[in-house]
């Protein structure tokens, strides 16, 4: 009996040490999603309500206090969660669609076209996402749509480069040749073999890009290039609280913590996603 237990101890695979990241990620990102959903049906005050005392501290009537115009901070923060998620999902979707298409074209193209696309991607990647997004927003005018489009386009170059490399790797695999010997056409190969096989790696990268997008949106809003009011972005809350950070620190701390929670949460989730998306990894647990 004792011997069996010892043998089991030795044979049992080592416990996965990083599984706590998945749990923490779920809790942090889940909380932000929950708050955003609640904000759609219920808010403590309307965002335009300036009836509160200015720069009040946290209390029963205003959980996180008020800003310099007397608006409820908790209300602003809840709307900010909605904006952050919308921009994160939207720009990742834009970046993924453009990036995957461009990456696939480069991977299949003749070498001169592949080289041209790759060089162009390198140039785009050399610009920081934020700078590129600023250029696009400045050209288009600040609105929620143009912020999403700008960040999405800026990140699509990285997605395209990753897609190209992953696709080339899959194309060299024998199962692609095997599928072709049985008469599968290239579109079928892309849908059935290439996309599923690049997805485990690509999806983790997209989840990380989500964090980048949320931070980029906050930065754009901080610089006054974000979505205009009443879209209360966390970045704009930070900027508005800047002048009163000594007298009313909650105004800056709350949106800051919210940003950190969402970005860390999503990054931790990305880690866990890798295992879910790739069934062949399960045996290595």
């Amino acid at each position: 009996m004792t011997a069996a237990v010892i043998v089991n101890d030795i044979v049992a695979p080592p416990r996965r040490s990083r599984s706590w990241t998945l749990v923490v990620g779920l809790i942090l990102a889940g909380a932000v999603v929950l708050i955003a959903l609640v904000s759609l049906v219920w808010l403590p005050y309307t965002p335009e309500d300036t009836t509160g005392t200015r720069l009040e501290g946290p209390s029963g009537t205003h959980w996180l206090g008020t800003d310099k115009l007397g608006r409820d901070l908790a209300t602003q923060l809840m709307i900010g969660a909605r904006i952050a998620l919308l921009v994160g999902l939207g720009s990742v979707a834009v970046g993924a669609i453009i990036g995957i298409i461009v990456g696939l074209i480069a991977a299949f193209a003749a070498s001169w076209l592949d080289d041209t696309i790759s060089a162009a991607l390198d140039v785009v990647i050399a610009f920081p996402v934020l700078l590129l997004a600023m250029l696009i927003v400045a050209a288009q005018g600040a609105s929620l749509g143009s912020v999403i489009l700008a960040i999405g386009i800026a990140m699509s170059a990285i997605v395209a480069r990753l897609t190209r490399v992953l696709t080339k790797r899959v194309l060299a695999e024998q199962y692609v040749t095997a599928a072709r010997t049985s008469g599968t056409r290239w579109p079928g190969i892309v849908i059935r073999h290439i996309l599923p096989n690049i997805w485990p790696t690509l999806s983790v990268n997209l989840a990380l890009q989500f964090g980048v997008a949320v931070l980029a949106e906050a930065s754009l809003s901080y610089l006054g290039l974000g979505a205009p009011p009443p879209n209360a972005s966390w970045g704009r809350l930070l900027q508005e609280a800047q002048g009163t950070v000594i007298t009313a620190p909650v105004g800056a701390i709350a949106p800051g913590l919210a940003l950190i929670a969402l970005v860390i949460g999503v990054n931790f989730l990305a880690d866990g996603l890798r295992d879910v998306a790739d069934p062949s990894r399960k045996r290595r647990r």
Partner: protein
Amino acid sequence: MSLLSVTSLGVHTSAGKALLSDLSFDLAAGQRLGLIGESGSGKSITSLAVTGLLGAGLTASGSVLLDDVEVVGAPERRLIPLRGRVSSIVFQEPLTALDPLMRIGKQLAEPIARHRGLRGTALRTAVAEALDEVSLSDVRIAKSYPYEISGGQRQRAAIAIALASRPQLLIADEPTTALDVTVQAQILRLLDDLVDARGMALLFISHDLAVVSAMTRDVIVMSAGVAVERGPIDRVISAPQHPYTAQLVGSARALDDMLGTK
């Protein structure tokens, strides 16, 4: 009329290095032919060249008529109708020839659906029958990923996939090399039976004299991309004409003797 007619086929790299030169042979419907030689002798290149699947940077010359269609230099759209329907390939290592992220049943359903136009229940029945034919009757196999089943089961599944499109010509490229010796014998018997039952032509590629002699009566011996000898396998083994063949037979005999004295 030949199903596969290869005339002075050559393959060279973009740098001009010849991997295969002046290979000619004919294979009629229902006939079998063995290609034998050491690794790097151009056997596998031949199997890819006759189906127009040479990788980037490799160019074929000469002529390959597959079901009366010229393969060398043909555009992809002319080759697609041939693949699967006329010819199929079984590869050496089923673990790399099967998509790691797709369940066996789905990988098998795909060519069946395409070539026979089946859907829904009829498709599921056809998949089960196709697996049954290669002695994979366990219902769990169809739901498994390639890494979840054994090497022998994987190769059976790969054979089922290659046969799903009902080809007239099966190209088996070292189909048993990656398997245990005991499993090897089972897979060879399975291939032998299926090729017979369906009246398929077989192009059997191997480095192993014993394996080739179990499967075909005629062989071509290849060395460094050149066919050095051809004829009935019994004659090639008993009275090799070319020094390379003699060496090949000699080393196989030496190995047999070594095993015999143990």
